[in-house]
């Protein structure tokens, strides 16, 4: 009997292809599982329910609301007081609560129907206690006049 049995002879020439085959098989099963996971998600995902209602076409940002947004973003109280009457200013004050320090202003979209335009904005900033918040508000425009705020 030769020195060393089968346990002491690793047969390196034969095990290398074996290891490669094993690695390829493991990779193939992993990829197979990955594809199966994607397929199962695609089949079972209901997705967001489509909007069953009509949508209005987008309108451009009205100049009058752009001026108000600019005044808010630049902390221009005098400009705001010139552009809006007291009732609308009070509505705006309520709409942007609890923001006290506006640091960003983004126009997100507008729609027009029957002569009334809704122009939507998102303001970012801080509350009186320093918390960062986002607040959405909508300026209602009729005939180049801001008639309300939501």
């Amino acid at each position, binding site marked *: 009997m030769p020195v060393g049995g089968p346990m002491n002879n690793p047969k390196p020439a034969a095990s290398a292809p074996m290891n490669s085959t094993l690695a390829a098989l493991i990779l193939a*099963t992993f990829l197979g*599982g990955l594809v*199966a*996971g*994607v*397929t199962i998600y695609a089949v079972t*995902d209901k997705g967001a329910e489509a909007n069953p209602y009509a949508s*209005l076409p987008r309108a451009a940002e009205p100049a009058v609301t752009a001026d108000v947004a600019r005044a808010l973003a630049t902390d221009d109280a005098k400009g705001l007081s010139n552009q809006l009457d007291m009732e609308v200013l009070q509505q705006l004050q309520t709409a942007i609560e609890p923001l006290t320090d506006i640091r960003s202003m983004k126009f997100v979209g*507008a729609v027009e129907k029957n002569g009334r335009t809704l122009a*939507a904005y998102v303001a970012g900033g801080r509350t009186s206690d320093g918390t960062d918040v986002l607040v959405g508000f909508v300026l209602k425009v009729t005939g180049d006049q801001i008639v309300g705020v939501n």
Partner: protein
Amino acid sequence: MVRTALAMVLVGGLMGYAGTAFATTMVADSGILGGGGESSDAHKYMMALLKREADSLSQLRPAADVVSRALDQQNVSQQAQDVKPLSVTYLGGSSSGRLSVHIYAVEIQAGSGQYQFFPLALTIVGGKVVRVE
């Protein structure tokens, strides 16, 4: 060998499922492929609100006590049943971390013929609608 193969299929399957769910949600919310960045949670809330689905609405709101939920159910059931939504338009939104704001324009027609055109702003924190105005 068989156990390893099964483990690989399982791990691959979970990664494929979770990865696809994460990627599709991110893409839909960012608006890269259209949709304007409308959050799926905001969309579901609006649909439930207009269809008066109290259970769906409560699932999309933060956890509340039983009395608050009962009041929500009553509010929904007492809304006028003959209100017909004419259009729902997603105007846009913005997000910062877990906080996002999404704004819609809604047209409704009441049974009495009264027409209303108004905006709704939804504030969402961590997938729950915390403010509607």
